[in-house]
């Protein structure tokens, strides 16, 4: 039972290459300006921009997929950019339909998944743990 430490996914090199909410880690990153510069103007996504975004989203798009998506995203972006025309100058943003508060529960042991059940869907497992590919780059 030594392998019960919570495991939240592979090391994605977040501090090195990710600075956005797409993978839940936007806050507190220093190079916002640099990121913006890497992408061109609104509604004018280039193929390189989409390739960059796909990399951030961890989707290895093929060349054909990239070609198709550049055009489609351009059309969608042009349409959704109309939100900027709404009279929103002094409006407070709304992130959720109801007031959110942090919810805690009593610190009591309660039934949960057995290790076998938790691992049952794993693509690969070893010694009652999730087995994953190497997590470090070679450089």
């Amino acid at each position, binding site marked *: 039972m030594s392998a019960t430490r919570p495991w939240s996914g*592979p090391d994605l090199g977040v501090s090195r290459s990710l600075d956005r909410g*797409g993978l839940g880690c936007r806050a507190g990153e220093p190079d916002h300006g640099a990121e913006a510069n890497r*992408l061109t103007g609104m509604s004018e996504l280039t193929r390189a921009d989409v390739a960059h*975004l796909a990399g951030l*989203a*961890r989707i290895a798009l093929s060349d054909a997929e990239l070609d198709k998506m550049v055009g489609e995203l351009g059309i969608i972006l042009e349409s959704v950019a109309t939100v900027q025309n709404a009279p929103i100058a002094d*409006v407070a943003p709304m992130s*959720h*339909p109801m007031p959110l508060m942090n919810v805690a529960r009593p610190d009591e042991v309660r039934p949960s998944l057995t290790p076998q059940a938790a691992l049952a869907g794993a*693509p690969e497992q070893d010694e009652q743990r999730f087995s994953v590919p190497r997590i470090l780059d070679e450089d």
Partner: protein
Amino acid sequence: MTNEIITSSAADLAARLAAGEISSVEVTQAHLDRTSAVDGAVHSYLHVDFDGALATAREIDTRRAAGEQLHPLAGVPIAVKDVMTTKGLPTTCGSRILQGWIPPYDSTVVAHLKAAGMPILGKTNMDEFAMGSSTEHSAYGPSHNPWDLERIPGGSGGGSSSVLASFQAPLATGTDTGGSIRQPAAVTGTVGTKPTYGGVSRYGLVALASSLDQAGPCARTVLDTAMLHEVMAGYDPMDSTSIDEPVPAIVEAARRADVTGLRIGIVKELTGEGFQAGVQQRFDESVQHLVDAGAEIVEVSCPSFTYALATYYLILPSEASSNLAKFDAMRYGLRVPPEDIDDPSAEQVMAATRDAGFGDEVKRRIILGTYALSSGYYDAYYGSAQKVRRLISDEFTAAFEKANVLVSPTAPTTAFKLGDKLDDPMAMYLNDIATIPANLAGIPGMSLPSGLAPEDGLPVGFQILAPAMQDQRLYAVGAALEARLLHAWGAPLLASAPDLTAVAKGTSR
């Protein structure tokens, strides 16, 4: 006998089960037989649990015979949308990335169904991760509209809408992020409710956009919808956004069907231009029925609704891009190593897996969300959308000061042909124009049939919206309208749908 069972309402089946006139095994077997006969043509199901459903039915019959006091819906079978985890049954969410995944736990909704003693017939088809309005984005092929098999059954819950309209189940579950319960109901002549946000637990639902997602009931009558709503709803400590208040008196409201003195607001921005002529005509007739039933009509204007679609297609992809990051090929689901890399890293395996496992629409929305949240563009896109969301919510609040409920057509058109909008994402998104505002504000909404459009003979949906936690108003209005329409038609709308057994012969799986 069989035919009469499958066309019965859930409320009738429940009453006859309780009276001992029929057994749950008979009811469940009749629906499974129907599935064997027609689902080869309709394709409502991704998985049918013949043995499990019958085992539950037998157990309920035994317990009933022993004199045990059971839930009113005990023994009434149900189909479950494949977005809800079911312990021991596949849950794919319509995606290849979850092909073969058997969840180790039940969603709260499914736990409620099981506790009520409802046999689960199977898992219904859906657009991948609930992204779509037609089921054409399902990795396992589209479902077909029982009114015309060449047409879409709506989406994302087209499996649940078509399973009801083809009489394979009396009840089904759905989830509604921008209309995925209501729009499928509209185009198939069935009923569906998106409850108040927080009314039904999201625990165990594969998340699309967490601030918009809400599970709800699908059925063929307003009363059946209310009865299922009651089973699904209620406070759940496993969902931090679950509302800790009693479920509104929805079944009682559906039975009373009283709209006397109720003020019904017609949303100016959700009628007229852009709505198919027959859709508008049936809407206008339904409004007149409600006036005849004693309701008052007022017109309300919500000018920011014109921005709702754009707002939604920024907020949803943003939240989805974050939610779907959990599909990382490490803990469950698909893992595909990249073909051209020796000894790939976890990151490279993740990227290759997500390319292989996600369909085009999912990739589009994840990348759009990644862009909308990126640091240089956050304020322009996601930030602006959040502000418009506030405007829309405020306009609802103002509208509900003038009216007790708001109404509109559910969808701008009747069911379109499979393939018609597949290559035009923006045209596909427009189907949700009337349903999206409710999700942005978190308020409840219902769709019920208002007739067939004269120009194409296909079902039209009537949408009712109510303030948060006033879900019972949907059922009062829905049941009142349903009763008047039923009287005018002389038979349920679905009685005029084509006979599928002839069509399905030869295509049976």
